């Protein structure tokens, strides 16, 4: 499966790129493994995303996968379609 990751704001600045391209095959195409791969390939993102014991942890960022927030997905389910992953940077404050 093709995986396109789009980074925004400070995350784009950290990695130095807006678009990351990865791929996965067969049983690698499980969300927590995909994010392990993303963080291994781009360790600059470790401050914001971590995978521990097959659980994905985020620090302030919002992750949207094919237009739908990650929390609505089963992160252990095998993905069978190409993915567009948007990783939004931290937002705080506001009134």
């Amino acid at each position, binding site marked *: 499966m093709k995986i396109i990751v789009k980074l925004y704001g400070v995350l784009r600045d950290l990695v130095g790129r807006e678009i990351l391209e990865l791929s996965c095959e067969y049983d690698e195409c499980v969300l927590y493994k995909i994010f392990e791969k993303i963080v291994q390939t781009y360790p600059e993102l470790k401050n914001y995303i971590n995978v521990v014991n097959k659980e994905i*942890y985020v*620090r302030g960022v919002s992750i*949207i996968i094919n237009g*739908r*927030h990650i929390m609505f997905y089963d992160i252990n389910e095998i993905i069978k379609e190409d993915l*567009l992953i948007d990783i*939004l940077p931290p937002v*705080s404050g506001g*009134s």
Partner: protein
Amino acid sequence: MAEYKKILRVDLSNNTLEEEDIPPNVEERYLGGKGLVAYYMYEEVKPRTDPYSPENKLFMFNGPLAFVYPTFTKISIGAKSPLTGTFCDSYAAGSFAVELRRAGYTGIIVEGKSDKMVCLKITRDEKRLIECESLRGKTTYEVGDYFTGYSVLTIGPGGENLVRFAGIFIDMRSRPLNRPGIAGRGGLGAVMGSKNLKAIIVRGWMGLGDLGLKIDLEKRSQLINRYVEVLKKEVVPAIGLGSNLPVFKLSAEARILPVKNFRLGVHDKWEELTEDGWRKIFVGRHTCPTCPVACGVKLREARRETAKIEYETVAMTGSNVLVVDRPHVIELDEVLNALGLDTISAGNVAAFATELVERGILDYPLKWGDVEGYKRFYHDIAYRRGVGDIFAEGVARAADHFNAHEYAVHIKGLEIPAYDPRGVVGMALAYATADRGGDHLRAWTVVTEISMRPSLEDLVKLVIHLQNRNAALWTLVACDNIVGGFADPEAGTKLYVEMLNTLGYDYDYERFIRLGDRIYNLTRLINNMDGIYRDRDILPPRFHEKREDTGWRIAPEDFKRMLDLYYRYRGWDEKGAPTERLLKDLGILS
């Protein structure tokens, strides 16, 4: 000497003013601020009361820490909202809460309706209604300039003309003496207008020693020192330039900035409206009395200036309608401030109207970025001229009129603020379950410093915790700008609990959060009694659609999962009502 903590009850129909005490068991359960607003509304305003009738009441309460500790300068103002028909509380900074405390009052309750336009005057020598027909039609600035030497709480022409999103404005002056405050949301200015009450002016006279407090002064001094250190090290850096303007860049970069009525998440001129852009035209700061943070900014460019602007205004009346240069954003902000209208609702309504024009549904001279058009539009709304009369009813009723609900972005009638929840999905639940309608302040879910699994369960628990915590904080009445700047919000809240206990209260953190839980369930009960149940805890159609630029959406089945879990964790039934057992456990019902 008993502590000065009275309520001033003002009957406009009979021209009477009376003082009363807060019963001890009420104070014990509801404390101050939002708690007392909710309690008295539950007790005194019947369900389904017409918000414009004399039977609706306006409740204004400060909190026990006002004037005793720095920064507790906000007043909680509440009534049945003419925009939503729900419980509505809104918060305004400025000098009013402190001056009211210095006049010996915890609160004011306004009931009935005057035959003529009046103002309420509270000084050491006078507590009475004064005739104010000469102020009819005056802007908020003109009223502030008229009453020198007072804290001034007023409405503008929008409130007088019962625009459903008219606000209540504090200390607006052509040359402000301190940071002004605006209780913008929910149309409380129209409630005041419906009563023919133009303004309340207060000049307090008491010092701390006159209030009759039983307070541990030494502990107070230590806590103030600790608090000031936290403000200096954490809050001031977090606030940056001030007025929440730093948020603009973050929203734009996260693509959650409302643009063209929430059809897009950013526009190509966004950098002009970031903190760096505003810094170029910064001319000074101001602050609320007793607050050292000074988060208010004064800005000037191309002969336009303002001393009262916030992120929401820049986003909603600027970016959302493609007004993207600073002088014009300031110009429209000042128009809305003078007219006395809520900028979040106004910007939302303006974007809705512009989309209707674009789609050929509305015949009105308006297009995206049309500054003169928006000025005309806002004046038409404030004076209810032509189609302005329709849009003065708010976006939900206007959508009824044009049969155009698919383009109206509101929840329960309250227009959505400047964060697109298709990018920050927790805000969808926060908006939908906010007690006053589509509101972002009950629970601000995007917490940067917490490391958490992006799990539905954790997010729902976070929304509930924030709603409870903030309801408790608004009994004090704490300032959101400060709480939002704490590096450790729990530690900050615990510091506030320590402050409370120097006054003889006996709170710990859990009991304080439970106070908020009680209040939030009480406001839900009030809303249930007004017919608000699950069928109103819904998102606008636009948020279920794929956004034009990114394809982000919130699927109805995903939202249902969030809401089901929310009700379960809250202990509400499947209709969205707190159970009787829960209400008894919380001490709401006996």
